[in-house]
């Protein structure tokens, strides 16, 4: 092997420009590839963020334009009607849903003097939930309990946009953020004029808008009578195959019994897909660019190596004539490509790292994990070897007799 590398270097020195071009091309491709794949993986992990509700079994209808004062009688009547639809296993109302973009945020502190603008407070998305929501959404309570009938009956919305109650259920991530390493049950969170005691902790449910703290979600009980009509989302749990039919039936039913109001139904999967539509289109775009870029790089290597082989037909003939086997010739070009790729990959990794650092400074992007760099390197090594295979074989096929022809 060592014996073979020295003549390769000698030949490269004579063909500085094409050699530099291959190195440059591989370096650029490596840098762009690493960053693009990293961006894709970030989007994909966002798109697949876990969400502790039965997403595949949920159907929702939003009802707007009803008389807020009649919510106390309207909501139970509407729910009873929805439960009458064949296939609906349970139904409940809620003020918003994860990923619905309909966010109601509020800041809470862990001390009584916390005010809304204090630095040490945590911004939380508020969900006002009606009876039966735990079963309907398929929430998993991991500590304590969910709300009971008294909690719902004793809660209402007053003139402030916060419910007049003292019970709250938080997600696991949120209690860990607010009271790190401490048992959360019985702890109290405060804002000016209101305080709430944690009665239960549930598995992580996403906020209506993600970004930053994805699971800072708080559920508050709210009975229909005191709800002022803020619980506009009617949620139903059903078998996944019944979803489309139930969306249509539920929408029609609510529209019929609430003349003058506007009912709009969708499955939960649709809400999630809609939320991530931009992200998934970006991911697809990046994939397309990566594939095409790798193809272009491969073509470039094929083109340059073919030219190279053609230029050196006589030298190859001489080597064959003095005893080199086809294998030797093949290996010569493969080794040469490997050396060039290695140089390219080294520059490429440095460049990839630099681009990532730049993007981190100017955009909301995380640091690229180290293993992206060797993975990108391996990908380009493989592509280099694949593209050199054809030209190398043609080089190996050069008969020794070429050496005897006058050039």
């Amino acid at each position: 092997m060592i014996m073979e590398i020295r003549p390769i270097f000698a030949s490269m020195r004579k063909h500085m420009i094409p050699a530099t071009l291959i190195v440059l091309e591989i370096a650029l491709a490596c840098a762009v590839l690493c960053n693009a794949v990293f961006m894709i993986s970030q989007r994909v992990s966002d798109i697949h963020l876990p969400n502790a509700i039965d997403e595949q079994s949920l159907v929702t209808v939003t009802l707007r334009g009803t008389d807020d004062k009649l919510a106390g009688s309207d909501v139970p009547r509407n729910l009873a009607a929805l439960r009458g639809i064949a296939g609906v296993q349970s139904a409940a109302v809620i003020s918003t849903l994860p990923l619905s973009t309909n966010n109601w945020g509020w800041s809470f502190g862990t001390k009584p003097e916390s005010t809304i603008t204090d630095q040490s407070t945590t911004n939380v998305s508020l969900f006002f939930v009606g009876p039966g929501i735990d079963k309907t959404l398929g929430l998993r309570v991991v500590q304590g309990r969910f709300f009971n009938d008294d909690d719902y009956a004793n809660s209402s919305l007053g003139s402030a946009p916060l419910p007049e109650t003292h019970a709250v259920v938080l997600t696991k991530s949120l209690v860990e953020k607010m009271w790190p390493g401490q048992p959360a049950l019985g702890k109290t969170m405060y804002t000016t004029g209101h305080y709430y005691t944690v009665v239960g902790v549930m598995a992580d449910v996403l906020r209506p808008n993600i970004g930053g703290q994805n699971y800072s979600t708080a559920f508050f009980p709210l009975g229909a009578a005191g709800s002022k009509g803020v619980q506009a989302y009617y949620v139903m749990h059903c078998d996944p195959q019944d979803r489309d039919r139930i969306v249509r039936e539920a929408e029609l039913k609510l529209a019929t019994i609430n003349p003058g109001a506007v009912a709009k139904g969708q499955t939960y999967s649709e809400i999630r897909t809609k939320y991530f539509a931009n992200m998934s289109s970006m991911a697809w775009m990046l994939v397309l660019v990566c594939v095409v870029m790798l193809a272009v790089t491969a073509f470039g290597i094929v083109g340059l190596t073919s030219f190279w082989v053609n230029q050196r037909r006589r030298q190859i003939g001489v080597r064959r004539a003095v005893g080199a086997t086809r294998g030797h010739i093949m290996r010569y070009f493969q080794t040469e490509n490997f050396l060039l790729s290695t140089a390219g990959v080294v520059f490429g990794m440095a460049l990839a790292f630099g681009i990532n650092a730049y993007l981190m400074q100017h955009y909301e992007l995380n640091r690229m994990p180290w293993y992206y760099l060797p993975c990108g390197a391996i990908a380009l090594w493989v592509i280099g070897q694949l593209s050199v295979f054809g030209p190398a074989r043609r080089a190996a096929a050069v008969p020794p007799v070429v050496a005897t022809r006058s050039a």
Partner: protein
Amino acid sequence: MFGYYLDLALRSLKRHRMLTGLMVLAIALGIGASMTMLTVLHVLSGDPIPGRSAQLYYPQLDPQDLKGMTSSKEPPDQVTLIDGQNLLRAKRADRQALMTGGSVPLMPEQSMLDPFYVEARYTSADFFPMFEAPFLYGTGWTAADDDAHARDVVIARSLNDKLFQGANSVGRSVRLAGVSWRIVGVLDKWQPNPHFYDLNTGSFAYAEQVFLPLQTMLELRLDRNGSSDCWGNSGGGAAGILPMDGCVWLQFWVELDTPAKAAAYKDFLLRYSQDQKTAGRFQRAPNVRLRNVMQWLDYNMVVPDDVRLQTGLAFGFLLVCLVNTVGLMLAKFMRRAGELGVRRALGASRRALFAQLLMEAGVVGLVGGVGGLLLAMFGLWLVRQRPSDYAALAHLDPAMLYATFVLSLCATLLAGLLPAWRACQIAPALQLKSN
């Protein structure tokens, strides 16, 4: 000379179809990808109201208490109701309008239509002339109507088509939020992109269907949406509850025709802030901003980061394609060393050879540009299929069409420089001898 070089270039390109094809493909792919993203960027960063964007300003005040809701030095992005009304009544600008957004249920009189929600803008009389909203029928309401809490409405053409089949509906009435409103005007198709006067609604492809007087909305307490930011113990904004005094939730725009007027208005804002502080309403030192439309869009970073990233990536890709083209062109030119040697020996200068080779590169660039254009059109079609809010806007305009060819030609000529220079270094004698 030009014609001769062109002929030579075409002959040479035809001889090595494979290599030529690869070069054209690489250029076309690079140009296609980068032009697709550049067009999206161009469309998104365009001027929503050309010709007037330099005269329209967005005043910002800082009414927060000392704790505030943000730690930044910038004043809030919107105004409180009190400040908005004060500035509106002061009438210190050529035109001014206070506004916020919402949605209201519409009960059609036609029995075959179900009730539906329409997007609403609650604003004041100057809105229409200030933003040059085009009227199909009728006009906007007047300042007197604002003061009288008139139940006047201006509707969009799409809603007019839906309710009245496109007929002139001025003078007829429509039921919104349980109240009857008189139609005073119908707007022709109008959708500024981005939706600069209120960026909380989503910046692109958003248009209101009804425009209602803000003062009437306040009286009737119609539902609003959009963002409201509060400090101190303020809150509100829940169904039917308007945000409290310690909340900013309205947008205020002014028209100032000359830079002198803009400077004077900024002074007025400073004096206003000082007066409010003296009166005890403001607690902070006067902190005002007066940005025009483009500055306001810039400040709000309206172009999605994703689009900027993708554009950068597309240019990275173009660079890879160019390096690739340099390599292929080098291979091609060097292979013709013999032919070039003969030309040199017959008396062609290096400069002539250089020109000939660059002509060849230019032809590749032009053909690649055509391919790139087709690919960009295909790419934009793909973008339009996506559900992003800006997707529908992704179209190639003449400026970008022209830019495609310029970019393609410049890129290939640049890529051709090194190979052409290298090929011109050939010693003619050596080439002649070896053949």
